[in-house]
């Protein structure tokens, strides 16, 4: 069976790692002719994924020359290239509800939302909450659950876990500081407010916006093997994401004997149980999160219990070969079954477009008003005498006259604001 995974790029990301792992399994263990199709040209060099050597990468132009049994989109932006391919079935691999990655006034939010309304033969997803949500949004399209596996060779769980009786609590934080919903900086701030002894390691692929002074050790980017070692050195993974599909880092940490303090972000319920293998903290609760970390630092029996149970949870999680079997069977089933009617999502698509247009109309109106107000202020500043008065105010010799000018300027500002 010929399968195409349409991807946006080959940069480092958890989502890309999942796609590559599935592609590799399908190709090597299930005899499928799997290719990656790049939805766009990329300038950056590829991240050094080992499996890339085993799966061919095609440009969109080259891929159009082929016919596929199944073409699979892996990100909302790749759906635009997906339907440019010739395939018997079009599938969307949904790793998260991607419109949530964007703020309400960002136009990409609409693009991500309508991507779910397209005429897919099936959805495949990695988390039950996504499957259930898609079943409500698109009851006309079957949605299959295929959980992500874990590389049990790289993340090789210890047979036994030695209790850590003393020493600072070793906290690991990872992610991109520049991605707002990862809340990396909030995690570092919470760890910094701990009262008990602690050691914080942050692993970030880039340092942009990262408050490195809040960590004891700053690393990254690192390979999977290096990451596994870091997890093994840690007692707890601190994960305060506000948007996730089904996150992998706490599960990887579980495999290496680290427990987790996490928000109740979507997908956590796939393997996190509060008080059993991890602690779940409240949203935007820096103090509460710090106190939970302090609890783990102070109560080493509890820490060991959570770490031990985390390890057991990990041992019952599927490997990539097991996950690959479900993916292979799922794709074959999708191919065997008749595709649903292509118009099933049309009404929803049009409704989402309409909603997006109305929302953008409101934002445009707000921006026009803001520009108009800013324009008035600019014109005022350009008025002869005003700019000079402001410059005088900024100099120390102008402070006395400023006491005369300020009330006048303040009244002007209020008038503009009114």
């Amino acid at each position: 069976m010929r399968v195409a995974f349409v991807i946006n790029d080959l940069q480092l990301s958890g989502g890309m790692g999942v796609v590559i792992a599935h592609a590799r399994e399908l190709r090597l263990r299930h005899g499928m002719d799997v290719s990656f199709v790049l939805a766009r040209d990329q300038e950056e060099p590829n991240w050094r994924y080992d499996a890339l050597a085993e799966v061919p990468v095609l440009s969109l132009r080259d891929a159009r020359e082929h016919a596929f049994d199944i073409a699979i989109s892996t990100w909302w932006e790749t759906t635009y290239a997906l339907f440019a391919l010739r395939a018997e079935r079009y599938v969307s691999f949904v790793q998260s509800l991607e419109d949530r990655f964007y703020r309400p006034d960002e136009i990409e939010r609409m693009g991500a939302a309508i991507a779910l309304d397209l005429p897919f033969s099936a959805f495949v997803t990695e988390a039950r909450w996504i499957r259930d949500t898609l079943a409500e949004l698109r009851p006309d399209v079957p949605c299959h659950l295929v959980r992500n596996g874990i590389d049990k060779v790289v993340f090789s769980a210890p047979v036994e876990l030695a209790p850590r009786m003393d020493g600072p609590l070793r906290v690991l934080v990872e992610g991109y500081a520049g991605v707002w919903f990862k809340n990396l900086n909030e995690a570092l701030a919470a760890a910094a407010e701990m009262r008990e002894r602690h050691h914080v390691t942050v692993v970030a692929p880039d340092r942009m916006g990262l408050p490195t002074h809040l960590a004891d050790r700053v690393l990254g980017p690192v390979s999977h093997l290096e990451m596994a070692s870091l997890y093994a050195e840690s007692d707890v993974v601190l994960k305060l994401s506000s948007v996730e599909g089904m996150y992998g880092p706490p599960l990887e940490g579980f495999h290496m004997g680290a427990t987790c303090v996490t928000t109740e972000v979507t997908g956590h319920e796939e393997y996190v149980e509060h008080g059993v293998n991890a602690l779940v903290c409240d949203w935007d609760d820096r103090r509460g999160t710090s106190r939970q970390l302090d609890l783990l630092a102070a109560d080493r029996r509890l820490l060991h219990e959570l770490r031990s149970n985390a390890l057991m949870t990990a041992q019952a999680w599927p490997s990539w070969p097991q996950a690959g079997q479900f993916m292979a069977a799922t794709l074959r089933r999708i191919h065997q079954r008749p595709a649903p009617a292509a118009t099933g999502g049309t009404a929803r698509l049009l409704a989402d477009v309409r909603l997006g247009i109305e929302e953008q109309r409101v934002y445009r109106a707000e921006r026009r008003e803001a520009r108009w107000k800013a324009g008035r202020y600019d014109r005022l500043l350009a008025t002869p005498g005003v700019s000079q008065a402001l410059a005088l105010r900024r100099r120390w010799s102008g402070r006395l006259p400023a006491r005369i000018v300020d009330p006048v300027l303040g009244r002007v500002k209020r008038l503009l604001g009114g």
Partner: protein
Amino acid sequence: MVDFQERITQETEPSIRVEHDVRYGAVAPLVATSAAWVDLGCGTGLAARAAIERGRPPKATFVDVDEAATGEAARAFGDDATAIVADLSAPDGLAAVRAAIDDGAVVTCFETLEHLPVFVALLELLVELAERHDVTVVMSVPNDAFSGVQNPHHTTVWGEGAVEELRGLLPDGYVLAHQLALAGSVLAVDEEPHSHTIEVTAGAAGAAQTHFVAAFGPRAGELAGSAAVAQVDQRRQRAWERQRSADLAFYRVLQAERDELHTALEDHIRQFTDYRTYVHELEARLGLPLSGAGGDAAATVAAPGSAAADAVA
């Protein structure tokens, strides 16, 4: 210590054996009224005898990778049973199984998938047989995720999440049943064993499953609830629990002693550090080498007014 058994034998713990009896008991009505029955992963067939309590099908086939076990299962059933030795994760094994399954047959496949390195091929075969050849399949997988037990004979791991994945591959109209643990008691009026009929009320809501059982095919709806109880060795259970309590108490005392020693050690270290600081001050004043500092000349600090300090001047 947990004893992982690959096969059910007469020596198998009653609490494990009864789980198998319940599953085969649940399919007994199906098996009794079927034209043919195929038991995949049959083992020795010891537990399968519960499946024929309500009646024997005219044709029975027992399939396992272990030749001795398969033969034993077929012999226990009778002359009209067939034994097939097959690896259910290999293409030729699956081909042999496919040839042995007639249209309309009932197929049982209990506690087998998790032993197969490649289970998906067997699963797809069973689904195809159910959808196109009127075969009814009843299969089970363990809840490894809940028990946390690491069974070395399990090549894949199963639990709620894996069963959710499995559901997406089953034909329409499948039945998903949850196997639960029971606790019980019996009043014995004499030393002789007596048979008792027990009525049990049990529900899956909020309960932890020991196993998941899925039935699919035309007769899936006939899967009956089933329950069984077995006398357990309370002495052994008690010994295990008491050993845990004793261990806990013992290690708590050890921990307390350790904490005391740790505190005392920290105090001693502080005291010795103070002593050493004081001694070093005295040695420095006297122009003597600092004790415990390696004994090299560089460690000598000349005290003001000392002969060593005069010599340097």
